[in-house]
């Protein structure tokens, strides 16, 4: 019953950099409305899920963002800008070493090409979202569903496992696949 990821990083990266996601997010009329749209989008949920499954995944996303932040230049925007913004929102909720430096860099940079991610990083700082404390992530094999347990929730026995998915409290976390 160990941890199991539904999504691989290449899959999620593909979604985040897709034209569909870009078109959905392009309806935002301001960075704040972009932030709201990002956090409600299923692709963002997939990314959040991916990051919460393992610290190694979060490190992978952090590395991606660093590369992207360094490579986006000029004044043209693209799908990667939106992918970068989404990753920034997710990473701002983690305590992975290096995240603070990255967010500080984005918030203070004057690079035109990073204006949007920079605005998003500032909003993340303003909203001061609490870091989600994940104790264990369980996945039921047949349906490939997830339950993410917070620190204050007891770890269930194996027999209790499927009852977790029927617990509306768990589903309310909004993280079930």
């Amino acid at each position: 019953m160990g941890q199991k990821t539904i999504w691989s990083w290449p899959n999620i990266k593909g979604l985040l950099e897709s034209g569909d996601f870009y078109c959905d997010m392009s309806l935002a009329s301001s960075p704040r409305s972009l932030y709201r749209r990002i956090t409600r989008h299923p692709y963002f949920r997939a990314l959040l899920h991916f990051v919460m499954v393992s610290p190694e995944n979060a490190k992978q996303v952090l590395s991606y963002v660093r590369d992207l932040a360094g490579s986006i230049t000029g004044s043209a925007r693209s799908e990667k800008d939106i992918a970068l913004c989404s990753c920034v929102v997710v990473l701002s909720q983690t305590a992975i070493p290096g995240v603070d430096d990255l967010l500080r860099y984005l918030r203070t940079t004057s690079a035109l090409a990073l204006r949007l991610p920079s605005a998003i990083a500032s909003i993340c700082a303003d909203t001061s979202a609490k870091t989600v404390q994940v104790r264990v992530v369980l996945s039921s094999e047949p349906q490939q569903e997830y339950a993410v347990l917070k620190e204050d929730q007891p770890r269930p026995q194996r027999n209790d496992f499927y009852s977790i998915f029927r617990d509306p409290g768990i589903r309310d976390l909004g993280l079930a696949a």
Partner: protein
Amino acid sequence: MMDVLPEEPAHVKEKYHRRYCREFPENTLRRGPTCAYNCFALAFACRRGWVAAESVDTILEDDGYRPLAPEEEALPGDVVIYRDGDTDEFEHVGVILEMRRLSPGSKPFPYVVSKWGYGPEYLHMAARSPYGTDFTVYTERPRG
């Protein structure tokens, strides 16, 4: 209050067109996507700059906009404003071009021009956009 963002990359223009023409085929494309201005700038700043949604309250107050009273009729030049259903923050605005009846004798609905985020500018019925059907008409006309 205003901020200028870079131009929308050329390669995504076709994606916008495919996406929104499929979703709202009856809408008329007025111009292609650009980041040079947003919907608020279209309505309140002659398409110049990127007006932050956070500034819209100030603009409405400074320019004397008010929600249309129930007994008043919307007129061309009034604006329709969409808010986020959860946070009540300003989400989108369109300028009314005409009040259009879908059939003879039916209630007229606003037909507007609006710009969809970084995307294109469309002519559309106020209820036919990705911003939903919940909007309020504002006017700067004096009451009465």
